């Protein structure tokens, strides 16, 4: 049955009507441009947010009482940030996940579970989910 219909379709020499062809062309054009617009929007939104990320480290506290390294961060950019990773001397460390999200103009302590020795310098690298690095050397007192 299906084969018959297909054969009849192939044998049919009549073209589609001009109205239908115009309609088809319009639909295809609109679909392609909608796709292009959506893609541009998605790509540029991500770019805009990445460009707008600015974070400053106000304070680093090598806390002897808790044995952690506490970093006070402030979001001075134009996009919310989410901390996705923390590296101390290029080694990944665990940190308090609940304080890892900072809205614009907000600040808070990021507690890094990492052992440290007095007098030694540590390279602390904080990475956001968009790939921004906030890194510097800090010496434990």
């Amino acid at each position: 049955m299906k084969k018959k219909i297909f054969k009849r379709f192939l044998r049919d020499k009549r073209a589609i009507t001009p109205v239908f062809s115009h309609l088809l062309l319009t639909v295809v054009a609109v679909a392609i441009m909608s796709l292009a617009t959506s893609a541009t929007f998605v790509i540029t939104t991500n770019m805009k947010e990445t460009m707008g990320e600015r974070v400053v480290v106000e304070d680093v506290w090598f806390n002897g009482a808790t044995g952690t390294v506490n970093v006070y961060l402030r979001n001075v950019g134009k996009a919310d940030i989410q901390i996705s990773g923390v590296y101390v001397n290029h080694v990944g460390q665990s940190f308090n996940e609940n304080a890892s999200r900072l809205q614009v103009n907000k600040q808070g302590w990021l507690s890094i579970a990492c052992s440290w020795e007095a007098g030694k310098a540590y390279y602390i690298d904080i990475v956001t989910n968009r790939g921004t690095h906030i890194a510097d050397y800090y010496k434990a007192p």
Partner: protein
Amino acid sequence: MLSLVLVVIIVGNVVLRSYQMNQVDLERTQETLTIANVTRMEPAGLSIEVKNTGAVSLHLVAVWVSDSTEHQRYDADVFLNAGESVTYNRTDIALPQGAFLAKVVTERGNIAVFSED
């Protein structure tokens, strides 16, 4: 045609954001400040002399007082014009006995530090 206009608007928005962020970075690099002195007030509190040595006005948003056992942040709200000095007094901040580190933080994220041994 409408899609083309939309794409141009979206891309224009990104260019605008890039310009904005360049402006933010430029202003941040132009902003410089120093703490001339930190003194203990009687009967309680501290007094910080801050000088805006930069070419742009600044907004102090925080004061930090740290020693070996405690790092404490206090919210602040002080505006300084370019070249202006101000003595910022706080009766609610107690300076620790012995060595301490005092910091002031601006809204743009710059920090001035003063240490007392």
